[in-house]
């Protein structure tokens, strides 16, 4: 009989994927169910395999997409895609060649499924509860929203997974973040994520896998859960997870790569058993109250500098404040905005675009503000266009682009000019993240949309109340 010891969600997934347990002198050998690859962090890994004459061991468990270096503007009149550089284009071609040579499914330019890796894989049902999911991308924790153990790896590790389907790993510590209560109207998953990061600090999760739990987490839809898990890396955490429940199961039912029919119901039964056992012990526990959280905006150059939108920029950290050209004591709302970016693996899903459209509908982007709206995937783009959201954005004076990482990482030519301030729904506000000298304020889609309309950092709630009140 197996031990009746109470286990956490993380421990259940970890234990079931150990090919070999760790010892004092060696890490565990951990099996990977789903390996996602993109153009930026994979080419050197394929080269490493080629140098040894190795083939990809499980191309059937490996999936590629194009997202980071890809232009978000359509094909030009000459039929060419407007890549930012020839090197970016050649990087994309390299992934196309590698996938073709190794028999890996690639959601390329001609695929209706192409999108940001952390948007498209869940949409297809590739990501499933209880899996180990890895990708050469730190925001892989997004997939933890489904109760998968999902984490980012470096390119050497990408080569390890390509060659063996396994990774050498030490077991992480466990941290449970319980969020009690209910989020107020106009406050969403992004505000919750920023509040958690502000509470724990940028290194607050280092060495740990986080499980998000509690009433406010349960109440989130899958898009909101993905937003929260996505930003686990901004705490330094290895991964973030949420136990699968009926919300998860309903979302996955019918997805093309999920089990179908009776097999789905059997799988769903197994998924329900993944939740942490009553009495499971975590290395550390943190509790937050959702009802006190307001729309959040960051003032500094690390993601843990989120404050409520109706409060003032704090003292301290003068380097970050100087870079942001903000003064201690000034209200964060009201700061002049040059650019608004709505998209990314954090907030490029359909509910994010709906939230932004709710604010923008029938209104105009403030003169001088550039608003860029980039769906997270082709599927999100289709759904948004079917609902007419693109028309709402275009009528407001915003740009509506093709899917990709775009201005979140600013590799593809979509960037913020030096010194400009961007309100961005992405995940990082590091110096220069959105372009050299760019100043980034992280916020929710609703707050970003309200800021675009106002021309300065703005609380979205009055805009929503005017609509619904």
């Amino acid at each position: 009989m197996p031990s009746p010891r109470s286990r956490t969600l993380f421990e259940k997934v970890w234990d079931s994927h150990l090919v070999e347990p760790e010892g004092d002198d060696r890490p565990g050998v951990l099996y990977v169910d789903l390996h996602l690859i993109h153009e930026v962090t994979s080419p050197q890994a394929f080269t490493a395999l080629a140098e040894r004459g190795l083939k990809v061991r499980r191309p059937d468990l490996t999936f590629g997409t194009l997202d980071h270096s890809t232009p978000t503007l359509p094909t030009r009149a000459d039929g060419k895609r407007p890549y930012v550089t020839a090197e970016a284009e050649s990087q994309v071609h390299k992934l196309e060649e590698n996938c073709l040579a190794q028999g890996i499914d690639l959601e390329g330019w001609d695929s209706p499924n192409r999108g940001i890796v952390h948007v498209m894989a869940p949409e297809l049902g590739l990501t499933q509860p209880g899996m180990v999911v890895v990708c050469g991308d730190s925001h892989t924790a997004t997939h933890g929203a489904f109760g998968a153990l999902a984490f980012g790896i470096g390119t050497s590790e990408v080569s390890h997974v390509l060659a063996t389907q396994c990774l050498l790993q030490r077991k992480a510590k466990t941290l449970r973040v319980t969020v009690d209560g209910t989020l107020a109207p106009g406050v969403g998953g992004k505000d919750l994520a920023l509040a958690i990061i502000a509470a724990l600090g940028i290194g607050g999760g280092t060495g740990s896998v986080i499980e998000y739990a509690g009433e406010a987490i349960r109440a989130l839809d899958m898009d909101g859960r993905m937003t929260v898990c996505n930003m686990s890396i901004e705490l330094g955490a290895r991964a973030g997870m949420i136990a699968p429940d009926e919300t998860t199961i309903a979302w996955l039912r019918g997805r093309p790569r999920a089990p179908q029919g009776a097999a789905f119901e059997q799988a769903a039964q197994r998924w329900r058993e993944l939740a942490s056992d009553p009495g499971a012990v975590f290395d550390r526990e943190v509790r937050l109250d959702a009802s006190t959280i307001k729309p959040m905006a960051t003032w500094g150059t690390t993601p843990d500098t989120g404050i409520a939108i109706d409060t003032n920029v704090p003292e301290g950290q003068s380097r970050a404040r100087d870079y942001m050209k903000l003064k201690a004591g000034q209200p964060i709302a009201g700061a002049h905005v040059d650019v608004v970016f709505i998209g990314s693996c954090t907030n490029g899903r359909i509910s994010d675009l709906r939230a932004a459209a709710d604010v923008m509908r029938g209104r105009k982007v403030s003169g001088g503000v550039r608003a860029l709206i980039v769906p997270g995937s082709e599927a999100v783009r289709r759904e948004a266009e079917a609902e007419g959201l693109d028309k709402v954005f275009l009528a407001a004076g915003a740009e509506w682009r093709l899917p990709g990482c775009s201005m979140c990482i600013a590799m593809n030519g979509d960037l913020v000019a030096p010194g400009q301030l961007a309100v961005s729904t992405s995940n990082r506000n590091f110096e220069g993240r959105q372009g050299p000298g760019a100043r980034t304020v992280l916020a929710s889609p609703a707050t970003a949309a309200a800021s675009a309309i106002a021309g300065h950092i703005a609380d979205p709630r009055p805009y929503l109340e005017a609509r619904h009140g």
Partner: protein
Amino acid sequence: MAEPFKILNSRTVVLTDENIDTDQIIPARFLTTTEREGLGRLAFHDWRYDSEGRANGTCVLNRIAPCAHRILVAGRNFGCGSSREHAPWALTDFGFRAVVSTEIADIFTSNALKNGLLPVVVDQATWDELASKPGGTAAIDLESCELRFGNHVAKFKVEAFARRCLLDGVDTLGWLLGRLPQIETYEGLRAP
């Protein structure tokens, strides 16, 4: 595979900032490369050069001979942010063989260890002492796991397998390929 790492004797470079993220170490716009060599010229690019490409004379990294300063002493939570292995590729190509901080991000640590760049986490007092003498010499002994400078000796920890790989120049992927029989057995057991 990097050459074995036993003892590193070198001068230090000190960057006191906390939370130096991978976008500082190598900005994302340089990640369109499909190579891993030659990235040292891009290390800390936007700290070292202005928007016109002119070298910033106040940046300490522009005022040293990299080959003589192989130990980077950096503030807490070094290497936070993305999983880009380009960060340790850039740092090692620039000339660094070790990073000393009071906290180093997980993915960066994992990537660094695979590239012959030793992450060394020390207590605050040791770090304060080391950081107070930029350009000073220090010895990092991986055999004894000791950082020595002046009269100071500090112990540090390195994950046992990664340490063995660095000391002996073990090829990690080669080792993992040696586990293929166990991997096949595991796959056989869980096949539907």
